[in-house]
């Protein structure tokens, strides 16, 4: 019996390689789009302002953090709104994607138990939906830039797509792994909320990178082991575009495009390794999804 696409094949999903899984995903790309669309539609169904909520979220964060850090704590970062938004949008993409993805397989138990399709589509749809929210929230940032007539860095803006790809790879890797682990250990979805909270404060979003990095000195690379940090730094470098305004050390000094590219490249390479491990883990755990749900 020949082994072409339509020929019968012995099947055990454990035999599937990562490449097989990717090609399965590609065949179901329309489902991915459909699920993203569903998540967005369902989220704001019946709400009067709909997608405005997506934009209100960073706007409200902005008000709260502005009040807490500039008015009460007096952190002196000039144009704090722009600084905060450049990092916060990245963070929102990362954290909403992971929070959603962790519940993705468990939450869709009904279809997982009845229909066969590449299950990785479910966590990836959460990443996709978070990305759409990110695009909507970017409108708030663009609005702020226009309002304050604030100039970003044209050179570094070219790095933003690279940063986004690195972030999406890293997010997808964790999303796929966490969604599968949560089927077996339901505590994961509660634990991830706490981890994300700690992770948020370990990333230079509301405070400046140099506050930590300068203290560490030579060992500042330790701080950048957090894969979200280089992405946030790139956004801040491109959009906030001030390294030491009014004498306050904010972003890494004397680093050019090459340095940023190197950092992002490392994140992307690391993420690809994690992603292939995540697919393998998912394949291992997937066999018993129907029984565990």
């Amino acid at each position, binding site marked *: 019996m020949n082994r072409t696409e339509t020929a*019968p094949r012995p099947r055990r999903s454990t035999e599937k390689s990562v490449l097989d899984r990717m090609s399965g995903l590609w065949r179901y790309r329309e489902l991915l789009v459909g699920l993203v669309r569903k998540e967005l539609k369902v989220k704001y169904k019946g709400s009067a302002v709909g997608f405005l909520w997506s934009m209100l979220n960073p706007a409200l964060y902005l008000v709260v953090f502005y009040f807490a850090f500039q008015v009460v704590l007096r952190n002196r970062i000039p144009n704090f709104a722009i600084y905060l938004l450049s990092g916060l949008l990245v963070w929102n993409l990362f954290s909403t994607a992971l929070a959603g993805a962790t519940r993705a397989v468990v939450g869709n138990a009904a279809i997982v138990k*009845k229909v*066969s399709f590449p299950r990785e589509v479910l966590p990836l749809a959460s990443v996709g939906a978070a990305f759409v929210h990110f695009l909507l929230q970017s409108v708030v940032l663009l609005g702020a830039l226009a309002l304050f007539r604030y100039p970003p860095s044209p050179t570094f803006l070219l790095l933003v797509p690279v940063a986004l790809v690195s972030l999406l790879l890293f997010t997808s890797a964790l999303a796929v792994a966490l969604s599968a682990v949560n089927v077996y250990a339901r505590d994961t979805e509660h634990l991830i909320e706490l981890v994300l909270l700690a992770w948020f404060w370990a990333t230079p979003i509301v405070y400046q990178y140099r506050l930590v990095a300068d203290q560490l000195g030579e060992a500042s690379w330790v701080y950048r082991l957090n894969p979200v940090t280089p992405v946030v730094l790139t956004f801040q470098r491109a959009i906030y575009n001030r390294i030491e305004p009014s004498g306050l050390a904010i972003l890494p000094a004397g680093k050019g495009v090459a340095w940023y590219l190197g950092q992002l490249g490392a994140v992307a390479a690391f993420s690809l390794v994690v992603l292939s491990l995540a697919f393998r883990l998912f394949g291992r755990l997937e066999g018993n999804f129907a029984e565990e749900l």
Partner: protein
Amino acid sequence: MGRNAIEVEHLSKRYVLGQHHGGGSLREAAGNAAARLTRRRPTGGPEEVWSLKDVSLQVPEGGALGVIGRNGAGKSTLLKILTRITEPTSGVTRTRGRVGALLEVGTGFHPELTGSENVYLNGAVLGMSRQETARRFDEIVDFSGVERFMDTPVKRYSSGMYLRLAFAVAAHLEADVMLVDEVLAVGDAEFQRKCLGKMADVERSGRTVLFVSHNLDAIARLCPTTLWLDQGRVQALGDTKEVLDAYITAGLLPDSRRTFADRPGETVALSSVALLDARGQPSGLLRRDEPFTIEVRFVVREHVPGLDLSVVVQTLPGLRVLDEAWSDSAPPHRGEPGEYVATLRVPPVLAVGEYTLGLWIGSAYETLVWEADAGFFRLDGSTMERPDRLVHLSLSWAVQAC
């Protein structure tokens, strides 16, 4: 030509009871770990269940195989393995071409989305491209009969509309191999006829069909060959008429009580069922012109508020003649733990013929037991040369000269 669309070789599937990775308690996990450490296998009790044991079969391209068997025979497991929802413990399955499944349709529907949105999303879940769905959209809508509500969120649909739309999407999937699980048990009689017609179309169009059903008449009409599964093993595989005859003969309620295997852990378990003739003797062969009694014994292990029981009698073509619920005539049972015997006396109103006896136990909120083929029985006697009638009431006439 002459190729097989489905090949199954020595397929087995084992379920281990009470050993869930996720759902188990810490104490159980510790117990299991201790058992592993001391290299003792957990002993005693039916902890392993072979849902399928050494099943082999082939379905040629364009063929249709019926699958019958009582609850727990492994029919659903077979479908789940063929659709790759779950993995076999051992053995190999091969399928040629795209596999489509009609297993509990509508599970991918989202209540907030409109009918059309759900058609596209459900199509995608089942593996149809957007283009493909768009091409068949009108056909799907037409088949479902809910044209007017395509822009309404499905949460406003009646359950019948919901199922019809869901079936319509699944039935229009362009698959080479269709796996069908008891979907025809939904909807009204007219829709069921439509579904059966659709299944016949699918078969005529050269696609391969594997059809699981309790409706023996539908199996007889659609499938030339039939597989009879019993407790995970192949009991018979071959010409449909012969397999069905054997199935019915074997299923005829014996001249004693039929007992059911105990499934530990269930809230309510069926213990036995028997038919008692007019003299109170258990019998599988009853006289049409005498009343008989259906006696059901069951065990309630945990308190079930509002416990209810229903006896369903169907003709072999699947026509429901009786569906008598306990709560029709008595207040719902308090459902306290214990062993119970329930009896239902049936007056001599059913026509001569063969019947399926189904038993349902549950409450207003859930189904706890549904044994669709609890047994078969035959009513013998004179048809009075009117074999086509279903009921036989001997109503009293009033005839007067006027």
